[in-house]
């Protein structure tokens, strides 16, 4: 681990230890914004970590920014860090100034479309976006649409746009945003913006799941070593050991897939590596959560135990920005169209 990474790890873990205790997570699920946690993250530059320095970035490399994101998921932090990083990366790619504060992105569902229209003063956006993450909390959204047949990125205020809030399984808000000729603060063309939003969103959720899986394994190991039944810790039973070995395999594969996707996505997301990551890690999320709960028995089924903060996130994130079937089908179609003989050259290019 590099020195930079090590310092970042210490800083981030300190922030989460201080500001992300159980009461904070619980009150966040009840709808209270964890202001102290977010402020601490902004103060050390993590919220603007994925941005180039010219765009107001904090000088943290992309890979380190993704490490910070992974760590925030390890701590089950109830903040829109992924969304803020994502909005910032696309805005700055389009040359639009990135505002302070938490940001969200829209649309995040394939059936939603936002329509941009030119006006005398600039441009407006109209349309409905479902399940916008933290859309009721973030003051601004990065929106993607088309104008005159061109792919566009825009910045918009979310004030008054929320028309109902659902929650994902982890209690994170997913808002219905409605825009009716709402004025864009800024807008600029960005080629393939919609597909980039989807792919980059899948990358960030993959990284988050890798972090949550690491915590899930840690919980399970800790519990198995502590819990005594039949006169010994259940970790001493071969059945439990094998379950934990399988869990470790899923966590290791998730970790490797996330790293591979991050390393190739420094400038823009690498579509193949991200498809692989979201597919493989989404599968690991389901299988891993199942084993971790089985090891915990009834205790892991309580609100009191902390395991659910990780597993409810895994069960949510694997379906956001495209589930395994979506990404696997895309990979499969590409591979089939290129033909069997093109597969190995593609797999071995790295």
């Amino acid at each position, binding site marked *: 681990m590099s020195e930079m990474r090590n310092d970042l790890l210490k800083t981030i873990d300190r922030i989460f230890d201080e500001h992300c205790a159980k009461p904070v997570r619980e009150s966040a699920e009840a709808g209270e914004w964890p202001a102290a946690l977010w402020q601490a993250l902004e103060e050390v530059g993590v919220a603007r970590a994925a941005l180039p320095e010219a765009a107001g970035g904090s000088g943290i490399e992309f890979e380190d920014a993704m490490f910070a994101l992974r760590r925030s998921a390890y701590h089950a932090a109830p903040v829109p860090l992924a969304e803020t990083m994502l909005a910032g990366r696309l805005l700055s790619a389009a040359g639009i100034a990135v505002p302070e504060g938490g940001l969200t992105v829209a649309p995040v569902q394939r059936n939603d479309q936002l329509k941009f229209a030119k006006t005398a003063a600039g441009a407006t956006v109209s349309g409905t976006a479902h399940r916008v993450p933290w859309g009721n909390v973030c003051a601004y959204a990065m929106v993607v649409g088309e104008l005159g047949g061109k792919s566009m990125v825009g910045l918009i205020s979310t004030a008054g746009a929320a028309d109902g809030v659902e929650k994902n399984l982890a209690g994170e808000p997913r808002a219905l945003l409605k825009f009716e000729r709402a004025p864009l603060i800024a807008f600029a063309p960005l080629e393939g913006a919609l597909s980039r939003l989807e792919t980059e969103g899948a990358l960030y959720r993959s990284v988050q799941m890798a972090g949550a899986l690491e915590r899930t394994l*840690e919980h399970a190991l800790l519990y198995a*070593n502590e819990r005594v039944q039949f006169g010994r810790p259940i970790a001493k039973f071969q059945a439990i050991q094998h379950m934990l*070995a399988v869990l470790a395999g899923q966590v290791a594969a998730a970790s490797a897939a996330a790293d591979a996707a991050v390393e190739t996505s420094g400038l823009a997301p690498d579509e193949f590596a991200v498809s692989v990551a979201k597919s493989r890690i989404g599968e690991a999320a389901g299988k891993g959560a199942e084993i971790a709960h089985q090891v915990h028995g009834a205790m892991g089924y309580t609100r009191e135990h902390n395991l659910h903060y990780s597993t409810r996130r895994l069960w949510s994130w694997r379906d956001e920005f495209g589930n395994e079937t979506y990404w696997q089908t895309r990979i499969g179609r590409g591979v089939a169209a290129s033909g069997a003989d093109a597969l190995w050259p593609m797999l071995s290019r790295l």
Partner: protein
Amino acid sequence: MHEFRYEPVQLPASAQALRSEVRAFIAEEVASEAFTPSRNSWNSFDADFSRRCGERGYIGMRWPKQYGGHERSALERYVVTEEMLAGGAPVGAHWVADRQSGHQILRYGSDRAKQTILPKIAAGVCFFSIGMSEPDSGSDLAAARTRATQVEGGWNITGTKVWTSGAHRTNYLIALARTAPKEEDRHAGMTQFIVDLSHPGVTVRPIYNLYGGHDFNEVVFDEFFVPDDMILGGVGMGWKMVTGELAFERSGPDRFLSTYQLLLESIRAIGPDPDDRSANEIGRFVAHLATLRRMSTSVAGMLERGAQPIVEAALVKDIGTTFEREVPETFRHLIPTEPTLGDGGSYPELLGMTILRAPGFTIRGGTREILRGMIARGLGLR
């Protein structure tokens, strides 16, 4: 914090050149009908092919030139290995000698062993088997009963080894034998010997596998003499060497590419415009494969740096062989056919052969259960 890091590996430019070279070699071999990829696995024994590999410098790649080696890096060797497997080359004759036996001899062998044996392995004319398992000692290797007693100038070995792949046509095997009675430390008193199978005192009998193939053997030693300079490492060092050897055996691409030919032929059979279900399953396998390759190359990088990634290697083998076994189980649902006995010359035969070989994937080189025990130890549970 139990963190498994599979650090990225940057393949050197020389490895990329080597990759193109091996790919061209395999294409030539296939074009000249020297072999048919779909009929092969890494057990396929073809001494002529191995000799041609030796001539091209694809065996003993990491060893010093004085022993016939080529002083290449672990990553260059990795590239050759994965190209051979992906190309369906019949590498079975030299596989064990190249992957582990030669490496052990280089590290622990006497000068005579190194000088007489390694150049022949590298030339692709000298082949090895593994002499670890016994009738009453499979996963529990420390229960081995084959014993060696000291005599003038060497040792006499008596006992029986089983599941000895290829011993009816290899030249040597490395036998694990007990050289001191079992004590409290059951791992003590074990020694590894290089056994020349052309010498008297050893009988090799076939053990036919479930589809009637002859790969396994039973190897019986009766007062078989091994000179002192054919001991590996030292008397009593056997256990440590066996466990070290297995890290090399477990993390390579042979632990997730055993069913690659079936995956390829299935993609071919499904065609360029798959239905949703087929596209989904192909995509899932490709995602698994890309991830496994990342993990496996990373372990190769760790081995190159001299690390001992025993748990990381065990994880690769556990999830790699699980993947291998899923390939036939999935495609039989997608491509309506009935698996057929044969040598893999048609899709039903390739499917049939893969189904029949699949049980071995999660047994050879350490069963899935043994690996999970090792992983559990690495996690601090034992």
